[in-house]
């Protein structure tokens, strides 16, 4: 049985007809009985807001524009950089340095000039969310952080909008639809965000470029099904995708009767400060005591050239060492406690990582372990590349 569709979507009425050009463009939809002229006109009448035009937003934008969604809103405050191109396939190399929302708007307009596309070059906040969301029928969450995800969820519930949710991490994806009548919301699933920095490790970041392509495509499919009112959508189910195992599975998602946002005795009636909501639970990674002794890249260079005997300790992961290195002795931060015997406390040590954060922790650890002559390379490899050797790749 099809899930009851949301009132705002059910109210979608075909107001226009298709031009002959549009009929040709959408012919592969029109000849499907499940879409047909009626469905295509619903797509044309629909207004969908994409929060985020990054990894998930790329396939979302491309497929929704191609499908003929009448109005697409694109919210992003970010600027295209080189590291985005590995997965954010809306953007080309020539877009680097441009605002993402505008670069995406230009690309999608080229793909489909018959639809209306509005770029909002702004960060979604509690202040602007109600105004931004109110004119759209469906909100698609393609963001990348917990505060914005809770904000999108809360705004959708308070405004009565469906929220097509997708998130990814490394090889894993989670997809569902929140905010449908009688359906659960994000807070029913996870009442609170995790405390970031539980196990800090830059090396655990990263995402395989295809993964957001797959997850964002599933979100696009769910969005289109919601508009068409066809099939069974993901309301009440969390679809899990494991790309390494190449396995899909799902778990049941229930509406929590005690949910503070959508439960019977809800306590949240307006948008809150989401950085604080996540922050009080430690949004900032537990920043190590940054008062550890530091050495700047330039100082290090001078001392190395002078022939000072310095022991360079690289606390990154082996795969990062392969990208670039300062020919230091590699002991990943996580292995430092059990490999500390490899170090000589009588020697002067300079610890470094990519940005200086992990190595600050290493220095702090070593000082507590009794090392006295140990410094943190300020700004890490990134600063070394900026200040000393521009041939050093940044990643």
């Amino acid at each position, binding site marked *: 049985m099809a899930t009851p569709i949301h009132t705002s979507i059910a109210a979608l009425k075909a107001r226009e007809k298709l031009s002959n050009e549009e009929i040709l463009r959408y012919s592969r939809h029109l000849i499907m009985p499940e879409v047909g002229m009626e469905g295509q006109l619903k797509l044309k009448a629909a207004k969908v807001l994409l929060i985020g035009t990054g990894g998930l937003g790329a396939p979302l934008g491309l497929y929704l524009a191609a499908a003929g969604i009448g109005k697409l809103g694109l919210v992003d405050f970010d600027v295209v950089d080189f590291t985005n191109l590995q997965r954010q396939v809306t953007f080309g190399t020539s877009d680097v340095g441009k605002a993402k929302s505008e670069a995406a708007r230009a690309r999608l307009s080229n793909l489909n000039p018959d639809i209306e596309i509005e770029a909002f070059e702004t960060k979604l906040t509690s202040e602007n969310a109600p105004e931004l969301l109110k004119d759209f029928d469906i909100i698609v969450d393609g963001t990348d952080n917990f505060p914005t995800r809770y904000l999108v969820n809360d705004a959708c519930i308070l405004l009565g909008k469906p929220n097509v949710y997708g*998130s990814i991490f490394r090889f894993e994806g989670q997809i569902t639809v929140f905010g449908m009548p009688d359906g659960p919301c994000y807070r029913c699933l996870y009442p609170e965000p995790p405390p970031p920095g539980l196990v800090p490790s830059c090396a655990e970041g990263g995402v395989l470029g295809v993964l957001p392509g797959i997850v964002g495509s599933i979100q696009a499919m769910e969005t289109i099904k919601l508009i068409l009112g066809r099939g069974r959508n993901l309301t009440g189910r969390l679809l899990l995708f494991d790309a390494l195992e190449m396995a899909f599975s799902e778990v049941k998602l229930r509406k929590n009767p005690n949910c503070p946002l959508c439960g019977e005795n809800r306590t949240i009636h307006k948008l809150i400060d989401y950085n604080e909501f996540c922050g009080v639970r430690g949004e900032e990674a537990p920043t190590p005591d940054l008062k550890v002794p530091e050495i700047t890249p330039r100082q290090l260079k001078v001392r190395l050239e002078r022939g000072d005997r310095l022991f360079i300790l690289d606390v990154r992961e082996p795969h990062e060492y392969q990208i670039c290195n300062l020919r230091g002795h590699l002991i990943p931060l996580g292995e430092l406690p059990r490999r500390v015997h490899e170090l000589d406390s009588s020697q002067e040590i300079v610890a470094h990582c990519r940005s200086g954060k992990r190595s600050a922790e290493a220095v702090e650890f070593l000082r507590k372990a009794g090392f006295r002559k140990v410094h943190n390379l300020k700004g890490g490899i990134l600063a070394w590349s900026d200040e000393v050797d521009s041939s050093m790749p940044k990643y």
Partner: protein
Amino acid sequence: MSVKVMIPTPLRPHADGKAAVEFQAKSVAEALDQLTAQYADLKKHLFTEEGSLRSFINVYVNGEDIRYLAQENTPTKDGDTIKIIPSIAGGSVTPTTTENPFGEVLQN
């Protein structure tokens, strides 16, 4: 009474990279006890210092949330699958700026 425990990608580095481990267990608690005994590193990710499951970790037995069953006392039988599903937030994670195994992006 073999029960399969599925480990999500973010936590696999703390479980020798394994995607699934099997245990003889009559309940979720028994299975998780054995899991964290075998991989001590996992314990702090799954449980608070007081020993309760963290609020951003959901556990499912055969696809059903244990919060709607008998929590950690939920019985398990031969062939059951326990899934551990952490909250992840990634969407356009910039490689190497993620400081947290669950996908929170922190610029560093």
